[in-house]
């Protein structure tokens, strides 16, 4: 039971973080696509901006790793 709860907690940590990241990236991505269409020279900056919200899922991943391995 405890083992199952641990895995569930780890899954929630990554899953919820991934949902948050996905939502943020969808908003940034659509706005970024518009910006790139008007100013192609900002492509690189937009790529970096799209990568920014990944911190959320990475932090979720760290928590999941701690839950599973420690």
């Amino acid at each position, binding site marked *: 039971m405890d083992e199952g709860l641990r895995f569930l907690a780890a899954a929630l940590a990554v899953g919820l973080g991934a949902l948050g990241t996905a939502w943020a990236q969808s908003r940034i991505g659509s706005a970024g696509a518009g910006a790139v269409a008007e100013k192609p020279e900002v492509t*690189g*900056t937009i*790529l*970096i901006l799209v*990568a*920014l919200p*990944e*911190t959320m899922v*990475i*932090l979720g*991943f*760290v928590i999941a*790793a701690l839950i599973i*391995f*420690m």
Partner: protein
Amino acid sequence: MLARMRRVDIIAPRRSAERLVRAIHRAGVLHLAPFAPPPGAGPTLFTAPGVLSEERPPAGTRHDGALAEVTELAGLLALPEAPRELVRQLWELDDDALLAEAAALGPVRLRAAELTSERLRLRGEASRLAGYRRLIEALRGAVGRLPSIRGYGSTGIVVNARYRPVVTLIREELESLTGGRCEVIAADLDADRVAAILIYPLRLAGEVRALLGGRDLEEVTLPESMAGVPFDELGPRLAAEEAAVRERLARTEADLAQLSVDHGPRVAALGLVLADRVAEARALAAAGRSEHLVAVSGWLPERRIAELREALLREVGPEVLILERTGAESDRDAPVAFDNRPPVRAFEPLASFVMLPRYGTLDPTPIVAFAFPVFVGLMVGDIGYGLLLLAILAAARRRWPNSPAMRFLWPVGLLAAISTTFFGILFGELFGDAGHQLIGLRPLWFDRREGALPLLLLAVSIGLAQVALGLVLGIVNATRLRHRREAIARGAMLVSLAAIAAGLAFAAGYLPAPAGQLALLVLGGALLVLAATLGLAGPLEVMGAAGNVLSYARLMAIGLASVMLALVANRLGALFENIILGVLVAALFHTLNFVLGFFDSSVQGLRLQYVEFFSKFVEPGGVPYQPFVSVLGEGGRSAGLELSGGA
């Protein structure tokens, strides 16, 4: 490192003003700035210049009109690259001779305009004939059955397939107009369009045109010469007419191409040289002037002053004086030039991609040049992928040896490939576990698949080291810029991070209790300092810095994803009994992983630099060093270190 810049005022007699600006232009090292007396200077001989404007050249430039005419001609011809020798010859001409060269191209411009206009007309004619021919061909079956009727005219229309009922409506209206003496034949032109031909008494042509007007139809009008031609003869007649028009079009294009061959190189070269003359006039307008003297101001790297001095002495004479300004005041607006040696120089565009550091602060390029390849290597970490990248880069370099893109990609990619191969050896990975399966390859350090926790600790430790380094560099930058409060806050942030790390080590049992208590005490003190320097947001920024450190966990997460995808590729390949098919499937998935792995690790590697690392020390707001370079200098500088203003 960032090059040390010097502000200079170059003074010369007014009679030598144009020669002075030409010499500065040829030397190509001065970043122009509008003349302004040194801060705190008393009354000066020189009057303030007009504003240095890129968009609007000063009134009265002799070359403006000539440049406009040559630019117009350049738009009409297919221009080759301007021959360097011709550019050099034209550049040395005096103003009158150069303007005479431009005037000599007048007849060429008229002829090119005539040919271009003829080409446009013929293209329109050919397009109209082709449209009608297509329509006739589409209706050929029906038209072929019709008798030739003298005194009847025809009009073709094309409508969108969605509006097909419009054809029926037109038929009804036409029948009403002609009393039934008409015919409408419709057929599909293609999937989206319906073509119809309307046949009606020629005397009612005006009324029919009025009937069709304003209906948003694509109307194909038969050429006047073909009015009344029987339908069965229309197709061949149109084809013949179209062929004749296309032949005339080909002749016109050949004439235009010949004109480009004969005059294109001179037009291209003249355009470049005239643009340089206009730029020189603009530079002169930004110079300070007195009754007898002119003063051109600007910035240049300190170590190139002697070079400029020598060039001016040679070209203008000993009456030119270069005055160097000193002091922090004049450094405030200095442009920024990088001064790194290969291979670090290749990373300058990456280091200045998001923000250019301010003059007088530290250059992040050397750290990016080290950290970026290491991060990419750590994330991809596979001997096979590293060697594959190396092979692709070598092939690309052989194919495009002089490409500017390769000058950037080769050193950056080479270091990333070496790093990937190196970490691949440490992790014992050659296309995932294929190396282990085929040649018994074993990790020198640890297996990433089984060492997720050590890898996570390694990634976070790298993060802690880089964020701490960023804070140390931030203290140095703040001290250089005399931002005392910033320097103290960054120091307190650094101490906070160290205290948090010590606290975690104590919680994990690696440090004794007194050390843990001391860490807590130090953290409290550091938070107080942060609150005192940055306000209430100060202590909260510690959480941000801790988040920055944890963000480096992506080095482990993406690395783990990469090795797992490689394993999936191998497992999928092993599912097939046919070896060739299995290898092909595995190769396909490895290719996908290769592209995804390097793309994602590059983006994430850069993101860690820009967001987590640069935010700790890079002071943005630098102005790029853009020397006043003539067309002779562009791409022609090869000796010594190249200096660039980033990006």
